[in-house]
């Protein structure tokens, strides 16, 4: 399912989305663990993590989405930033998967925003 024809800018943007989502999942789980085993944030973290898995599946096989960690730890803000980044990714055949990714991130923003 990996798309080999993504151009460089789109790849870089998608990799940045992956980083934001990964970091948001880590932040959600860190807060969940601080709150205890009953925290609803365990499931929010799981949702964010699966969204990041989806982005990873869209990246080229040889891509290494390592990069600088986002500076902030606000989960909702990280998700909003990820959504904003997806706005510059074209909705075209070669980016199949971007539409459900957008929906998933928007759902997570709603879930994370009090």
């Amino acid at each position, binding site marked *: 399912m990996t798309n080999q024809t993504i151009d460089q800018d789109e790849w870089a943007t998608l990799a940045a989305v992956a980083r934001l989502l990964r970091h948001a999942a880590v932040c959600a789980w860190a807060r969940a663990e601080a709150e205890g085993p009953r925290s609803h944030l365990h499931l929010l973290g799981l949702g964010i993590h699966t969204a990041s898995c989806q982005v990873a599946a869209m990246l080229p096989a040889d891509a290494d989405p390592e990069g600088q960690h986002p500076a902030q730890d606000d989960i909702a803000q990280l998700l909003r930033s990820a959504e904003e980044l997806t706005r510059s990714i074209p909705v075209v055949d070669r980016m199949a*998967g971007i539409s*459900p990714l957008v*929906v998933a991130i928007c759902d997570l923003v709603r879930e994370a925003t009090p």
Partner: protein
Amino acid sequence: MNRQDARSVGELLLDADFTTRQVLMDVTSEDAPAMLRTWGEVVQSASELWATLPPPVGGGSSPIDGATMARLESMSQAMHRTQVRQGWPGDGPADERLLHVAETLTRAADLIGRRGGHIRPSDPEVRADLDAARMRIMHTLYVGAHGVGVAARHHVRDVELSTRGKTSQESRGVPRGQDAVKRLAAFEQLAGAYVGNRYARAAQGEHVRGPYGAERLQQALIGWDIQAHRTLAASPTAANLLLVSRTQAGIATAAGAILQAGARTGHVDTHAYEHRLAPTLDATQENWTHVAGRWAEMTSPADRTDMDLVAAANELRAAVREIAHDKTTWARPDVMAGRVDLGEAAQHLQQALSSAVEVACVIRDVAAQDTNLTGPARAMSHRANAEVDGAADHGQRGEDVVWVAPGDVFANRPVTIPEPVRAGLVDATDTLVQTAGNAMSAAACLDRVTQDRAPGSGQEPTAPRSRRHEEPTHMAQEVPRVARP
């Protein structure tokens, strides 16, 4: 229409797309009636815009043809006719944001109609632009339909709760809303197929048709269990092990919340919950989380996770949310009890807690025996030293050993996990098997509670059972520990 609007067709399409995203991020139950009233206008405007785009040269050889849009428009019209016939949601204000989307699409159609005579679809670049425009329109409908569906689903849930026990006249919004939810889901699925929705299920646990409530939870738990075993048998990578462990932790968390609601509403024995279930559930949740942390250390950002496993995890999360969540946190116990029969849900969770022991055993076997386990050199070096230091704190001081070659650490290459890392993993998974076993034993009382309930009791809570004073059966003797590598 704004006569000063100098935006291009592309800019207008982006505006429509971004507005539907904003709607989806902000949507609430109260928005549903206005959104349902306005959705038809959005689809009609999109269809008119679609019709103004020059058709592909040589007919519809690609998926970029008009069939999908025609079907979507007829679905929307049928939905509108039903709304008029049923008088639901009835007259009232339109949703301003969706109205803006409809007007923006109409503006784009006008622009093409007035100035698009020069468009030559035989030119490859123009063809690509047209394809991109069609894709953006369909994407906007896909995101928009999802947003209206979310609002309608939440609205139905609220009406259901507020009209429980009332006349069918007062609760008539429920079946009508459910009908709208189903139609919007079908609409979303069709639009999603057009935009290459290969990842749809994985992305959001999409659930177009099928059971709801406790039955959905049961199917999601069974589906998850099967997929976790399949994935771990075929590809026991750290990334897959991480998702399995995090999802199992999520099941334990959800079980705690749902069973607590069951205890508070009389569906689960309060004493059994507080003294037997809750402590063992918390312990197993913490152990799944701890083991997940170990697998996370062994992953790198480039790792891929099995998308079937992702889909199963998403469906499970969606099923739990349907029962147990209220926007950003857990729903109140009485709200959960209003959504499903918590006794039935408890029985499904009891089965899942039994299955969790087997999943824990599989993970322990991977930790102990899989010689292909690797991890990033730096993380493995840190973990190996931490394990050795931990052992030294317990009086087992060994020789100083370099567990990972400096060159590998410098380049952060994937390396086979060092012996202390594996030993730590085996210890952690051994503990996990024991605590999962304890939770399974404690949850056995749920089966008895359910069996004790009067048949046909439906959603009515039963009187709490008399207190039992049995202690959970500890599994330490029942589940043999695996040999150290």
